[in-house]
């Protein structure tokens, strides 16, 4: 029974039956799980609302247009810029709706899937990473940079 945290010290230590251990440990897990859930709620609710509002404005379309000229380095059509911007600000599902409308070939879908796989839902996920007490000011830019690098490299590597 080592490495037990001081969450449920009230139970008697003499009761060391399998049943008691099972109850104790699942109760501890339940407490920790509810704590995690609450912590995630406190960031997911505001971020989700902000992202939903953002999605209904023309801001994403404007940023997307800005990135259109860069798409050729990733082997993607210009319209993919909006999918990448939407995927990064909103989420993969929103990006998929745009990908589906673009009629890209297997190579292009694989490339955009790689870029979006590495870097997506950045507002929500950097908030979660912050709540994990990891440094999101390192992780978030790193993901964006690596996504771009992987897009450029794989565009060179993948056969046409």
């Amino acid at each position, binding site marked *: 029974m080592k490495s037990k945290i001081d969450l449920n010290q009230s139970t008697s230590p003499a009761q060391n039956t399998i049943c008691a251990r099972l109850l104790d440990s699942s109760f501890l897990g339940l407490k920790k799980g509810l704590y995690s859930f609450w912590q995630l709620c406190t960031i997911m609710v505001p971020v989700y609302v902000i992202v939903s509002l953002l999605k209904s404005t023309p801001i994403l379309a404007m940023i997307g247009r800005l990135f259109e000229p860069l798409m050729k380095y990733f082997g993607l059509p210009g319209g993919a810029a909006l999918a990448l911007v939407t995927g990064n600000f909103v989420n993969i599902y929103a990006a998929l709706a745009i990908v589906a409308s673009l009629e890209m070939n297997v190579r292009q879908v694989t490339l955009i899937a790689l870029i979006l796989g590495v870097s997506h839902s950045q507002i929500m996920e950097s908030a979660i990473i912050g709540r994990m007490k990891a440094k999101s000011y390192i992780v978030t830019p790193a*993901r964006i940079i690596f996504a771009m690098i992987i897009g450029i490299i794989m565009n060179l590597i993948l056969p046409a």
Partner: protein
Amino acid sequence: MEIIISTFWGLAKLLGLVFVIVVPLMMILEISREFKALDLLTRVFYPLVRWIGFKKDSIYPLLAGVIFGISYGGGVLIGESNSGRIDSKQRLLIALFLGVCHAIIEDTLLFVAQGADWLILIVTRFILAIIVVFGANLVIKENVVKK
């Protein structure tokens, strides 16, 4: 009005999903720690991740994140955050690995449905995550032990 309703429903679904995954994940973690089943998991995966800088206690949140997604791996980390088992360097390494490579099943399937090549997606993300963490482990200084 439409946007308020759809936002509310989307949020409710998201939080519901987080609840039904994070809470059982934490319970499984504690039960398997109590019954030493966690050692088994560690014995299988530790040799695979040790050389890029991960410690034994990082394996469970890492697996949770790679399989289910960053919110769920993060949920496990948040639940563990008061235990002192995982230090800040490990947190950053976990976040970097999961940042590049998480929800490997869901993300891959979504794009496979659009015609993407699943093998390329999975292999590339894993290799990139390994390179990133390997590099970060060399660059980031080890934490000074503090309680």
